[in-house]
């Protein structure tokens, strides 16, 4: 059996806000398999965003260890963390975070340019069904289209890890479904380990595995015997 994509032990993250200490994560143990699609559910303040940020090396744990394949992310310095993101991770944000000065295809190309073995940007856009909108600027796209461009941008480098922070949070149901379909399809196509965080329990059915977070720890876990198709979701 191959190595897990991520192995986390005792992950703890404490924020110091003046005199007060806030524990966002309190000893999370986690193994994620390669190619696995995981949805993390939890209310606001449960620590899911913190966990995602640490998995993406945007933040570092206060204690505990995190290993991605054979990279120890716990001790990585800034340069190593940047290299990790550059080579292995694709991000999808709640508010898209497209560069407004670049067209759809250029937003994808800007990442392809620094990746080691990217797919052609046009192909990535094709995977999310936006081949015909390639030359539009973000201001000329709907919210759903912008988020699909963000998905294309995330997968163009064929990342081993796809991290999605509330990707449907800013979208209506119909548009959200289209985005999730794109995400599920392309993550399967490229075999990426996908972590999607949301407080929308209705989305959980599309995952291989669902983790439920509460008070900075993993409070529950379940596996879906059969993954639902996004078009069958209701929320």
């Amino acid at each position, binding site marked *: 059996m191959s190595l897990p994509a991520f192995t986390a032990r005792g992950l703890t993250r404490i924020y110091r806000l003046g005199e007060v200490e806030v524990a966002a994560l309190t000893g999370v143990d986690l193994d994620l398999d390669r190619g696995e699609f995981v949805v993390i559910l939890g209310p606001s303040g449960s620590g899911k965003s913190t966990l995602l940020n640490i998995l993406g090396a945007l933040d570092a744990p206060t204690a505990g260890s995190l290993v991605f394949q054979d990279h120890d992310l716990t001790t990585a310095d800034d340069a190593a963390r*940047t290299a990790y993101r550059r080579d292995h991770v694709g991000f999808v944000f709640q*508010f898209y975070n497209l560069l407004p000065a670049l067209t759809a295809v250029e937003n994808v190309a*800007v990442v392809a340019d*620094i990746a080691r073995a990217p797919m052609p940007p046009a192909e990535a856009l094709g995977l999310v069904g936006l081949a015909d909108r390639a030359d539009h600027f*973000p201001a000329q796209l709907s919210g759903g289209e912008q988020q699909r461009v963000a998905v294309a941008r995330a997968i163009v480098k064929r990342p081993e890890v796809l991290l999605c922070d509330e990707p449907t949070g800013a979208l209506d149901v119909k548009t959200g479904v289209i985005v999730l379909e794109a995400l599920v399809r392309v993550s399967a196509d490229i075999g990426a380990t996908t972590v999607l965080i949301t407080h929308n329990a209705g989305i959980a059915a599309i995952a291989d595995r669902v983790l439920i977070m509460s008070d900075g720890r993993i409070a529950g876990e379940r596996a879906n015997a059969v993954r639902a198709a996004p078009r069958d979701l209701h929320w």
Partner: protein
Amino acid sequence: MQTLDRKVVRDAWRLAPQLGAVAAVMACGVAILVMSWSMLVSLDATQREYAAEARFADVFVHLKRAPEIVGRRLAAVPGIDRLETRVVRDVTLDLGGSADRRMPAVGRLISLSDEADDGLNRLTLLRGRLPDPLEPAETIVSEGFATAHGLGPGDHVFAVLNGRRTRLDLVGVATSPEYVYTIGPGGPFPDDRSFGVFWMGRRGLAAAFDMADAFNDVVATLAPGASLRDVCRALDGELGRYGGLGAYGREFQTSHRYLTNELRELRNMSRVGPVVFLLVTTILMHLVVSRLVGTQREQIATLAAFGLTPREIGAHYVKLALVVLASGAAVGVPLGWWLGGNLAAMYSRFFRFPTLAFRIDPWAVGGSIAVASVAALAGVVQAVGRAVRIRPAAAMQPEPPAVYRPSLPERLGFAGLLAPTTRMMLRHLERRWLGSALSVFGIALGVAVMVLGMFVGDAVQHLANVQFTEVQRFDRSVTLAEPAGRPVIPELARLPGVVAVESFRVVPATLRCGSRERRQEIMAPASGGELFRILDDRGRVHEPRRDGLVVSARLAELLGARRGDAIEVDVLEGRRPRVSLRLAGTVDDLVGTSAWLHADALAAILEERHAVSGALLAIDEARAGELDAALADSPRVAGFVSRDLQLRTFRETIARTLLRMRAVNTLFAVVIACGVVVTTARQSVIERSRDLASLRVLGFTRREVAAILVGEQAMLTVAAVPPGLLLGYAFVVVTTWGYDTDLFRVPAVVHPRTYAISAGTVLAASLLAAVMIRVLLDRLDLVAVLKARD
């Protein structure tokens, strides 16, 4: 403090670096205004008060010699309030030192009337006492000369009076309204080392020069309402037969003219400089506050939703401008005060008033703050307008993504050549074209102020080079006590160390064209001479003509004469012939005003066979001391000037002063350049933090992300440098108009090095900004930025 005002304080604190940069630029503008306006008021008041207090004369006339009885007739001329006759003579001084190192210097001896403490042009004693009328050797020395040579009461100097080496015992040091600015016969720059004024008892001086019961100089004040022109005409009528050189008013009195000129230059300075600084203040204020309103769109909408009126919202942003104004004024006013004190100290080295105190003028302070307020408020007016138009509903919707389009190079078909990050930069700069244009303009102004600040040094260097190496190529200029015949030339040639001698003839005259007239010496250099040349501002050599006068272009302008016009010439020497000469040519020269005529033509007018007024000498420097001693001892020599000494004094006084002023200007220019560059850089970091954080999350390194902003900054800077240099040259040209006086013209000469340094400084400021961008980006909190909606 209202709660909303706390937001002003916190916004100001958050934007402290940008607002600080704006305030720094504003402070420079305020400082220049406070300094120049207050200095103007101080100098003007000092000049007027001193003239009134010391009873500075209104009319002056020098003549050859007249019996004292004529003086009494002159005093009765209608329109004259009070008139004094004097004996005034230039002599060579012997300041001691070994024979081979005697410093050539000229002293002007002026007789004091017996009631010296009640006369015209009254002396202000700084040290010592007035001479005892019964002690002919007792002398008062002018302050500048005393300071330059470390002289004071109890010391003595030797002067050659009518061929006799005479000891002058110094009993006092004084200033006179007539010699506030002391220019010797060598002109046009003050030289306290080689020219001094000495006042002594009338009897002793008259005896030494055979002027008992006679005089050769007149000063007078006018009765209220008297016509200067009529009085001058009457005096000239009386004194013509006594060799009168033409009466003139205060307006043409050398010291007074220089002082008036300086006031004009100050006025000039108080206009150009601050305008630039305050314009930059407006631009920067606009850049900062308009962006702030952009980022606080939802906050403003929320405030509007809670019922704040547009006036309250507008006032909120106006208060930010007031914070900058308060900081700028708090720094600018004391800075102006301090600079003014320094300027006054500098002036007091050239302008010898009894006291020249820098008085800060409340009107100047109030006025400069008023002007600065206009600049600050003009900067926020557009942004405030935008803020008050934001509707409450905007709080409920996220701001749509900014609208971009392909940039001009892409539309022209060069898209393929540009990397996505380069496209980002170009599209961003183009989308915010007004901000980009203002940034470019601001940086260009920084470059321009730098060029302007440094140009003064270039121009003076050029002026000195032209004057001291191209025009005056002699080593010594000797003036004879009386015009002499040609045999004086071989006499001078036989003096030790003389290598070449060229004579010149110069006569005082009045030139008249239509209703305008002007006292002007006519100079006839030796024909074919090499030691003196007539040069124009482009370095072209002109020759004196036989068929008419060649004059300074400035003189032609003052006379309203054009080439070919007839100029009436009254020669004020010898037979005093009156002739009409054609204006044969004009020369755009740099110093003073001159009129030249071929030596043969002048000799013909004077009906003399080549008389000589003086000579220019080229010498063997090794024997300079010997020669100077011989010249000083010669009874035929009224005075002589060493070009090297003039040049050295020039370098040590004027040039050093200008360099100091240049340093201040340069510092100001650096403030502008850094202010603009730093503000635009910080603004772009704030504005683009979300984009850049996205790139960082996507795997871009710090260096790659910084390169985008630094690239934008570099594009702005590179775009600003060429127009900045051009604008700098334009400022230079406009400034030279202000210096275009009959004393000297400042040429619009800018050394290539000045351009290079100006551009280099701004590029260096950009580098600093690049480092700052990098530091700011390193501090960027990726998670926080991405979580924020904008």
